[in-house]
């Protein structure tokens, strides 16, 4: 069969889903092309899970449509389950499965033929570097390894759309890199990948395009660089405040700010860089702050500005 006939985009059109008075999805439209890794970013309660559950046929939309290639997933939830692979945010229920066995059984349930499943299972175990645990029971696996086994279960025989909800939770940095390589390979094979995450910094490196959603609406969509281009000409001044220090009075050139713990992040115009450094040094001199860093604005700044959410943004490796 020609590749073009196998490569199906996911098309979500004007999707509406309400629970009583709350519109969890309020007219969301997006397209994920085959071969593309598409990030879905948003704080808790933004409507990400509601969107995903409608795609995989667990919830029925109140309005709008979802199609994968020629298939209407709203009209045919059985097709949705066959065509989509879903890694939920919660850990997989594999306490009494050996790691390799969990991958193999899921592959068979997903319709893979035994030799094909066995080959792919070996390949994933090797690629994710989890060989030393392949005969370990799920109950004895660390959270990170269990997460990787979950990823392998979902992708051993992947559907045309692979939905990954926070796939790297608990995974160590080295294996995180291996996991992202495998995510990319899914794209190379023609699957559309929908990556649901809070972790903006990681998403920025991993996705081709992304959407930021909040309160059921799509706020922005584009490549990471296109979204960042909106902030061209601005810089991020990050000030680490002294313990128990109040947020200092902000000078007029500060265009926006958020505070997480002692970390005060401000956005300034490039032209004000010298003034900003002077202000930060003055705070240190007054013992109100301990250090500062000036850098380019990141996707995280844009995310925070759009969603007003500071608690959910990934902030493991502020750069």
């Amino acid at each position, binding site marked *: 069969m020609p590749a073009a006939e196998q490569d199906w985009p996911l098309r979500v059109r004007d999707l509406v889903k309400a629970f009583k008075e709350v519109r969890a999805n309020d007219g969301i439209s997006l397209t994920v092309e085959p071969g593309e890794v598409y990030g879905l970013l948003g704080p808790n309660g933004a409507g990400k899970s509601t969107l995903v559950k409608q795609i995989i046929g667990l919830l029925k939309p109140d309005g709008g449509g979802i199609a994968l290639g020629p298939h209407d997933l709203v009209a045919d939830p059985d097709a949705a389950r066959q065509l989509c692979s879903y890694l*939920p945010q919660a850990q997989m*229920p594999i306490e009494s499965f050996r790691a390799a066995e969990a991958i193999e*059984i899921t592959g068979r349930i997903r319709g893979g033929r035994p030799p094909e499943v066995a080959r*792919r299972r070996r*390949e994933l175990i090797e690629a994710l570097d989890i060989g030393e645990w392949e005969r370990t029971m799920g109950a004895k696996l660390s959270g990170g390894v269990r997460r990787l086994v979950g990823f392998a279960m979902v992708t051993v025989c992947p559907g045309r759309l692979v939905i990954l909800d926070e796939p790297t939770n608990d995974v160590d940095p080295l294996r995180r890199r291996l996991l992202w390589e495998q995510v990319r390979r899914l794209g190379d094979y023609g699957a559309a990948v929908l990556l649901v995450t809070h972790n903006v910094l990681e998403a920025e490196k991993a996705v081709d395009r992304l959407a930021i959603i909040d309160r059921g609406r799509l706020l922005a969509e584009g490549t990471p660089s296109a979204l960042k281009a909106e902030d061209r000409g601005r810089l991020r001044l990050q000030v680490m405040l002294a313990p128990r220090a109040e947020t200092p009075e902000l000078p007029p050139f500060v265009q926006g700010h958020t505070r997480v713990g002692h970390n005060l992040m401000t956005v300034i115009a490039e032209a004000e860089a010298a003034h900003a450094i002077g202000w930060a040094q003055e705070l240190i001199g007054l013992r109100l702050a301990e250090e500062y860093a000036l850098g380019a604005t990141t996707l995280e700044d844009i995310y925070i500005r759009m969603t007003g959410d500071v608690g959910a943004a990934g902030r493991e490796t502020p750069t």
Partner: protein
Amino acid sequence: MTTLAPARVALRSGPGYWWDSYRGMLRWQLTSMRLWLPVTAMVQAISGAGFVLAMGLFFGTVPPRAALFVSTGVLVLTLVIVGLILGPQLVAAQRMEHTYDFLWSLPVPRTTAAAAWLTVNFIIGLPALAVALGVALLRYDLPLHVSPAIVPAVLLTLYTGTMIGYAMAHAIAKPMITVIITQATIFLAFGFSAINFPLDQLPGWLAEVNEWLPLYPMANTVRAALTQGVAEEVARSYLVLAAWSVASTALAAGVLGRRG
């Protein structure tokens, strides 16, 4: 290096798809219960046998009619307790641990998950039934008259008990409510259902209620298939039980196809 299979474009369907999915789901369920399935089966068998023996310890000499009632009633409890109580509690745990969505996102016909769970109940229930019956025979020298009706009576009892539990488990979205209802079911099943004693021991109105609920008809049909001259109005019990099996199947089918 590239062994990722080519895209599966055609959707699977038909009997072969159903059968493969059933085998996959049965393997999934048996493996996920691997650590405690043998223990559960053993506990079921021991508790059935224990119940039969305990009565002898308590009364010393047990009247034959009482021995017949208890021994045949215990069989019903060993058959339905997993499906009616443990099944819903397992589903409640899946909901609490947020693994429910993953299991329902698997690409299988949903009837295969129900069929696999039914099979698990047979695997646990039938040996327990055999052990309890064996112990009762050895201890009380029961005058059993086993008729071929034992097959439909046991099948219908096991099926109906499992499907009522299954439908309830999936119909109730809040796990805590499931847990409360199953606890109440244990209380009612052991205390106020005419399983181990004759129906006429109950006050009139409660006896009437029992005739329409599923547990008494289960006990009555199984007892009728193992004894002579003990069970009454057996045809009515079959009818009530059949109605419960149809209703629970319909409810389960409705719930399984439902999207929130």
